[in-house]
């Protein structure tokens, strides 16, 4: 092969054509398509306004009349106890409080992620910091406090009371058998198909002041296992949230995945494990597609008032609940929050 010929021809061919489309043409086309698209409200997307709290509450409201024959839930802010007491939802009993607090990481992360400025979750901000140990510890506590705040604000002291009314309720998309008013969320209407043995299918809708979201899912209740899958979606967009929770003997699992325009945007999962007969532990993982970042935290129950938090670059942080205070300690550093 004649290399000189090859090189000469290559240069000639490369110069033989000029792309006619300009960068400006493409940007104009892009802007036109953006304008044509339905504007997406990043400030209050449905999965932020209907975050983990709401999903768990919806899931719980559906499971309650199914499995337990109870119609009232009163979440309690007490500390995590024995895993054996935990029922289908982490909201269901006082034992699930910590799990529930941890699960609140999701909506907060997502909400912050959607704010775009600075478009970082508390923990992602934290991961990027390079200061000394004390500053990093302060940043961590600040982040952890942030992610816990929705739960404290929503549930500590002001217990939610979910009552499922049975009857015939007319919604936007149909008539349903159950109605539950969920504080801070809206009204849930749903119907159950219990004719499937251990399986039950349900469908319904949740309405707040602005929108109506559809939901569908199923529950399985067998010996030793209680499982619920739920899909909440905005029928006008290709945005939806999948929720799954599963209690199987010594494991409680809760996962939450958010899809925007059909693409995975965020996933969060929490596993509540019983390390031994008296030491429940929570493993929390999250992944934020926009930032391509995720993380894992492990929270171990020591006693009713003391928890150990691992992850995010720390060997062990102690969190102690004492007289309405939360005391974080790491090495010789102590931070008290009220």
């Amino acid at each position, binding site marked *: 092969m004649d290399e000189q010929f090859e090189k000469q*021809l290559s240069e000639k061919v*490369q110069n033989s054509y000029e792309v006619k489309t300009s960068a400006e*043409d493409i940007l104009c086309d892009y802007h036109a398509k953006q304008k044509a698209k339905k504007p997406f409200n990043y400030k209050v997307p449905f999965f932020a306004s209907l975050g983990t709290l709401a999903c768990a509450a919806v899931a719980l409201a559906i499971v309650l009349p199914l499995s337990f024959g109870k119609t009232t839930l009163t979440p309690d802010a007490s500390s995590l106890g024995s895993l054996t007491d935990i029922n289908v939802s982490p909201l269901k009993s006082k034992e699930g409080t910590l799990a529930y607090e941890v699960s609140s990481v999701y909506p907060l992360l997502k909400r912050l992620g959607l704010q775009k400025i600075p478009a970082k979750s508390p923990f992602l901000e934290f991961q990027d910091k390079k200061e000394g140990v004390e500053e990093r510890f302060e940043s961590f506590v600040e982040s952890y406090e942030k992610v816990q705040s929705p739960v404290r604000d929503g549930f500590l002291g002001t217990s939610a009371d979910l009552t499922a009314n049975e009857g015939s309720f007319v919604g936007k998309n149909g008539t349903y058998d159950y109605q539950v008013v969920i504080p801070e969320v809206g009204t849930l209407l749903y119907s159950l198909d219990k004719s499937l043995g251990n399986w039950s299918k349900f469908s319904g809708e949740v309405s707040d002041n602005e929108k109506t979201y559809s939901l569908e899912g199923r529950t399985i209740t067998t010996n030793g296992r209680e499982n619920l899958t739920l899909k909440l979606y905005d029928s006008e967009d290709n945005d939806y949230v999948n929720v799954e929770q599963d209690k199987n003997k010594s494991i409680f699992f809760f996962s939450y995945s958010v899809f925007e325009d059909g693409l995975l945007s965020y996933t969060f999962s929490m596993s509540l494990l019983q390390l031994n007969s008296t030491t429940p532990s929570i493993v929390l993982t999250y992944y934020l597609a926009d930032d391509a970042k995720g993380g894992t935290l492990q929270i171990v129950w020591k006693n009713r008032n003391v928890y150990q938090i691992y992850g995010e670059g720390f060997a062990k942080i102690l969190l102690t609940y004492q007289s309405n205070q939360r005391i974080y300690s790491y090495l010789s550093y102590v931070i008290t929050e009220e």
Partner: protein
Amino acid sequence: MENADKEAIAQASKALKKDPEGQFAPFYELTKKRVYFLIYSYVHDSALSEDLLQNAYVRLLEKNHSLARSLNPYSYLCSIAKNLAIDELRKRRPQVDLDEEGVSEVIGENDASPGDTAPLLEAIKSLLSPFEFQVYILHVLDEKTFKEISREVRRPQGTLTYTYSAAIDKLQKGLDPRWMSNSRNS
């Protein structure tokens, strides 16, 4: 692709992720020819290649905010461009299984209207088989290595180097010498 070009595209890609609209023009100028010829290697039609090129870049801009940090916008752009080209061919030739090995020997063949692109390319196309033409374009104009082309067209590297060498021989023997003179570039 030369290392300097690779580095320039990598830098432009990085900048594009941070400021998609502000940094689009420099990214586009660095990559447009490669993307154009990548598309052209499939569809063999200049006007269509321009249209698909525009669509590919618009899609990149639309998805830029959600691209994983580890994903290079240029690689993503090439995937979009290739998929758009193949989708277009699927529309034209629904009976052809484009996923099969060797499909590049039939795709785009005789699809272009005559004289719609640079005359030199037309002359080259007339001398080479469709597969040789595709390898030539991807290697020379899209500046892909044989390893990269191998992944793209699902052929062994040895086959590609042989095909390319055979193509150069054919061109050296068959191409009108006037094309190689300094007075005529296109």
